Structure formats: structure tokens, C-alpha cells
């Protein structure tokens, strides 16, 4: 069962990574504008080749 000594810390480390990522998303304000985010995906400002000039 000594394999647990390696596996459990490894599992916990991975889970902590996930928690850390979530905390980062909260702190960087990614849940502050839930309404705007769903509309912003429709904006393709990064490309202007679709507008014939």
C-alpha cells in the first residue's frame, strides 16, 4: 500500500491546481459580467476581412 504515499499527494496536488485556477478566475473578475460574456462571443472585432469595403 506504500504506493498511496505517492498517489494521494499527486491526486491532491491536481485537485489543488483546479481550485487555484477557479480562485484565479474569481479574483480576475471573470464572473462580474455574466450577461456581457454571452454576447461578446458574437463580436468578431479581431478580423475585418468579412466586411467588404
Amino acid at each position: 500500500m506504500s504506493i498511496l504515499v505517492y498517489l494521494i499527494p499527486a491526486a491532491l496536488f491536481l485537485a489543488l491546481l483546479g481550485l487555484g485556477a477557479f480562485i484565479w478566475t474569481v479574483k480576475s473578475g471573470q464572473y462580474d459580467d455574466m450577461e456581457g460574456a454571452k454576447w461578446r462571443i458574437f463580436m468578431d472585432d479581431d478580423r475585418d476581412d468579412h466586411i467588404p469595403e
Partner: protein
Amino acid sequence: MSIGDTEIDSRDRGCPTMGGPVAMPGAAADPSAFVRTEDDGLAHLDLLVRGARCAGCISKIEKGVNAIAGVQLSQLNLSTGKLSVNWIPGAADPGLIARTVADLGYQVSPYDPGEAEEMRDKQGRFLLLCMAVAGFAAMNIMLFSVSVWAGFNGEMQDTTRVFFHWMSALIALPAAAFAGQPFFRSAFASLRKGKANMDVPISLAVLLALGVSLYETMTGGEHAYFDAAVMLLFFLLIGRWLDHRLRGQTRLAARELLSLQAATANRVAEDGSVHAVQARDIEPGDTIILWPGDRAPVDGQIIEGRSDVDMALVSGESAPDLVKAGDAIRAGMVNLTDKLVVRASARTEDSLLAELTRLVEAGETARGRFVKLADRAAQAYVPIVHTLAALSFIGWIVAGAGVHHAVLIAAAVLIITCPCALGLAAPAVQIVAVGRLFKRGVLVKAGDALERLAEIDTVLVDKTGTLTLGKPRLINADEISADALVLAAKLARSSRHPLSRAIADLAGPGAVAKDAEETPGHGVEGTIDGVRVRLGRADWAGVEKQDEDRSGLWLVAKGAAPVHFIFEDAMREDAAQMVAGLKARGLRVEMLSGDREAPARAAAAEAGIEHVSFGLTPQEKIARVEALVSDGKKVLMIGDGLNDAPALAAANVSMSLASAADASQAAADMVLQGEKLGPILTAIDISRAARGRILQNFGFAAGYNMVAVPLAVFGFVTPMIAAIAMSSSSIVVTLNALRPFMIRHKS
């Protein structure tokens, strides 16, 4: 099906991109006074933009503002309506930024969040973090707990079990210390006041479970409740967060009152120059200029100018009054037609608007004393649970068990009885009901407003703007030729007077007479096709026969017969239907109007209301509401005017309309989004259904306790049973919360 069942999409309303009404271009206050310099050396300004609803709005506003020379970054938050703009100090003009947004068709005002608001945002983030930590901990402890449960038949060695318990403790203790803060703090605060709220048994259960489990772990015992303690926090935090979101959902509406106060004013300096300053910096004796469309920031006296002024603040009626030099003007009144120079006589906090705000706040404080269903249940529940836990502890000691065993039993009782149903079920039912009502065009600001609405027995309605449309409408359109209407509209489009707006609305967009000039209190004059044309009061327009009806306009052009435009404030289409629906639900309906007796009685008769009070001032409206409330009646107040705001706040529960004054929307618990009154009935029906569902969940929780508690008291509850029972009861209660509305949706 009731008449309120028409689905409207309230999202499209007011969005200029989707063809909604457009704010007046250029109608933007100068926000220079709200610019601040940040640590990064950039000038920073927050604006509150109203009417933005979709991707088109975001892109139009952000692109428009980013295109201004000097602007570094502009970002619009669609949930709150906050537009943040950064620029290099001196490189861009804040006034130009506000005008750019206004010219795009959005209402814009400086954004000035109160401290309470910022606290709420922080609290929301903190709850989300707590929830994430508790969820992480619960899942990872389960990893160990399930292994331990699976190994109970002897497959797991004692050393492995103890190792797993220690790992659980390592996760659970810091996680609970962090994620339990919302409960521990609230429980501590409540205990200091000598009371016990729902958080007391929660905190006690969590702390006791953790303490007992830690002791078990250290002594190599078999049972540890780390999973149950942390899962309990996780479920309850979901409920807390839902509740928080529910209250934050319509913060935009609540912010309207603040945006009235965060206004700027144009102050005339001693050298004659005009500067934009924050309204709260105005001192008595200052000279300020009110342009047409401006709202008076403080009380004062007019020293120069003549203009029509919208007095809705005081009377609730939409017909404007003519004011001239020497007259008094009160804060919140809107100047309509011509420039006014005003000498301030009071500071903002001493003005009528502030007085109304205080009345609204007083009403809201009184309403804060309403005890939510969940809290009422908790008040009965908490003592019983604690007595039970104490009794089982004493019972097992008396029966000869050791202190260690007795504490384990007491902890199991506390965990198994923890009020998940109360903490999770009520917010879950309410968030579903609020979402449902939102689709039907009713914006609900607080979950407990639904509980209060379900209890009402008396309904008070305002007349102008509530039962009626609140806007004059031309009633003799059939008698007026199309040419006359086109002619009148060319003059009317240049004016902000309500009667002119009524003609302009009817005629639609079109040309404006070039030299149109408005004489406040009389009418508009201009040259059209070389002919002088006047639109206004009979005596001014030059019509001999004086009509007793003041609400008429005359159109007089040389060489043509005068045309009479007659207006009336029309009843909303479904007003009578709504009143009948209220009566059918066993409610007593009464009308409170600031209007004169004759029109008030006529409107009441048309709507089918028997009880009428008329000629009421705002104070008398509150007095009527308070008299009913102190009589033990549960009062719903429906109103729209600024003069209704204090009465709206004083009632047990209140509704306002989307067309209502900002302050009234802020004071009301619910805001109807459409022109129809039918959703009032829908709201009452759904609130009653939601109340029934909450009570049902409490009944379920009580039944569950009746089965589980004896098991716990007599020592049959192992950590595995506690964990399964608790999560399954939470899930069942939540599913039950969603059930009735799913059925409604299908039909």
C-alpha cells in the same frame, strides 16, 4: 389561464440596437466632476449606461468611445451597465465621452456606487470563493471516506484508515475554517445580541463534528465526520450564494435612486463662467443654470427665465406648470422648455428629494422587520434541535455510556438535523419563481418580496400612470385632417411639452419647422411654407371661443380654420380586467389618487373600484398605507409617480411600472416591464405557488427529521448514513423546488 400569461421578452425593451426608444441625443450631464486619477497615472471615469442590452450595444459603445482621441481603454459591463473609461490625463474630454454615448442613443449619467454596493460585490465574490473551497474539500474528502466505508468489512488495515482520516482532517480543517466564515461570523453576531439564528446550529454542528472527528482520528477511532461537516457547508453555501444572486439581480433598478443624486449641476462662478460641479457641492446662495431637460439638483428660487416645469415629484400628475422669476422650484423637478437661472436655497441633503429618499428609507427599514418564512421556521426549529442533542447526550451518559460515546451521538444528532431544507430550499424555490416572473415581464428585487406578496389581502392602486397610461393621448384624431396633423407635428417635434410629445409620437418621425420657437406656458410658433403657424393655448393662438377644457391645443395658420386637438389620459387596456382578477382572488381594492375628485371617481368607476380616496399628498398616501398596516392588513401598493415612492416603501409589498419615476422603481419590490397590468395577477399567483412549495419543503424536512432523528438519538447513525441522508435530503428538496414550475412550463 389568467390574462397575465402573455410572454414578453423584456430584454429587447429599451435597446436602441433592436429598435427600442432612444434617449435624446446630446442629453448628457458633464461628468468632469467624477473623473479620478488612478495609481497607473491614467484618468479614470465610470459612467452608468442605461439601455444597453446586446452585443451590438457593447460593440457600438466601446468602439465609439475608443475612437475618441486619447482614450486608452473603454469597457462596458452589461450586467451592471457600468462603462469604465481610461485615458491619459488631459488627452480626452470627459464631456465628449458622455456626449458620444448619449449620441449613440443611450441614457448616460455618472456612476457613483455607494459603499454598501461595493461591500455587496465583495461579499458575493467571497461567497463564491467559500463555495469553491468547500466543494473542493467535500469532493476530495469523499475520496477517502468512500475508501474507508468500502474497507469496513476488514479489508482495510487500521494504519491505512488512520492515515486516511489524517488526510481528511488535513483538508477539512483549513477548508472549514475558511468556508465556514459566513456562518461562524453571523452566528457569533447573533449570539452576542442574545438571539439564535439559523447559523448557530449550523456552526455548532460543523464545529462539534470537526472536533469529535479530530479526537477520533488522534485516538485511532473508527468514525470520522469530516465529510459530513464539509458537505454541509458546501450545500448551505450554494443556498447562500443563490440568495445573494437573487438580491443582486436587479441592482440596476435599485441604483436609479442613487443616479438621481449623483447628478451634476451647472454652477455660475462669480466671474460669470459656468462650471459643472457635483450636485452635493451646491451651497445655499449659489447660482445655477437649468437647461431644458435638466433636473433641479436642489430646492431654490427662480431669478431669471420662464419655463414649463414637470412637477410630477409633488403631484404625480404629468401636466406641467408654468414657472417664472420669483417662483420656488423643488429638487427633482424637470425643466422642460426654456433656460432657467436659479438661486439655491438648500443643500441637496435638505431638499425635497432627500426628504422623499429618507421617507423611502424609513419605509424600507420598517419592511426589514419582516421575518422570512425560513427564519420563522428556524426560530421554532433551533431550540428543539439543541434540546434534542443535549437530551441525547445526557440520556446516553445516564444509560452508562462514556462521555466520548455520548458526544459522538450528540454530534450525529446535530448533523442529521442541520437545516439544509431551510437554507437551500427557500432560495431555490424563489430563484425559480423570480426567473419565471422575469420571463412574464415582472422584475422581482428580493426573494422575500414574493413571500410578502403571497400574504396580501388589500391592494392600493394609484390612478395616473398606473391605472391610466399617464401620458396624454389625442382622442379626436378622427376629426383632424392628415394635413393639419403633419403641420402640427412640425411644430410639436421641437418641444418637450407632454402635449407636443403626444402629437409628435402620433405623427412619427419627420421634419421640424426651422425657426420654431417655444413660449413657455403658451405654445410653439414657427414658419412653415412661408406661413406663420401657432400651436398652443386658445387665447395665445388667437382663437376667440374660450374652451373650458384646459388640456386642449389649438393649431392656427393664416387662411385656415383653427383646429382643436383634444387630449385625455387614457385608461390602460386591461385595467378593469386586472381589478376584477384581484377581486376574484379575494383581495380588497382601493384607489389612492393625487388627482381631483371628478376624474378620480370617473377612473375608479371605469376600472370597477368602489373605494376611492382623492386629492392626496404624498404624506397622506403614506398615512393611508400606515393606517391599513397598523390595522393588521397586508397591503400591496401599486404606483408609479415620484410622489408614490414613500407610500411604495411603506406598504408591505409594492409594485411599480417600467414607465415610472426612477425613485419609485427603486422603492418598489417589483417592477412591471410592459404596458400591461396583467402580470400583477401572474405575480400574485406565482408568489402563492412559491409559498406553498416552500411550506411543502419544510414539511418534507420535518418528515425526514422524524425518521432520521430517532436513528441518530439511539446511535444508529454512522458517518456514512449521515452523509447519504444529508445529501439526499438536500437533493430531494431542491428537485421539489423546481417541480411546479416545470409543469407550468409544459402547459
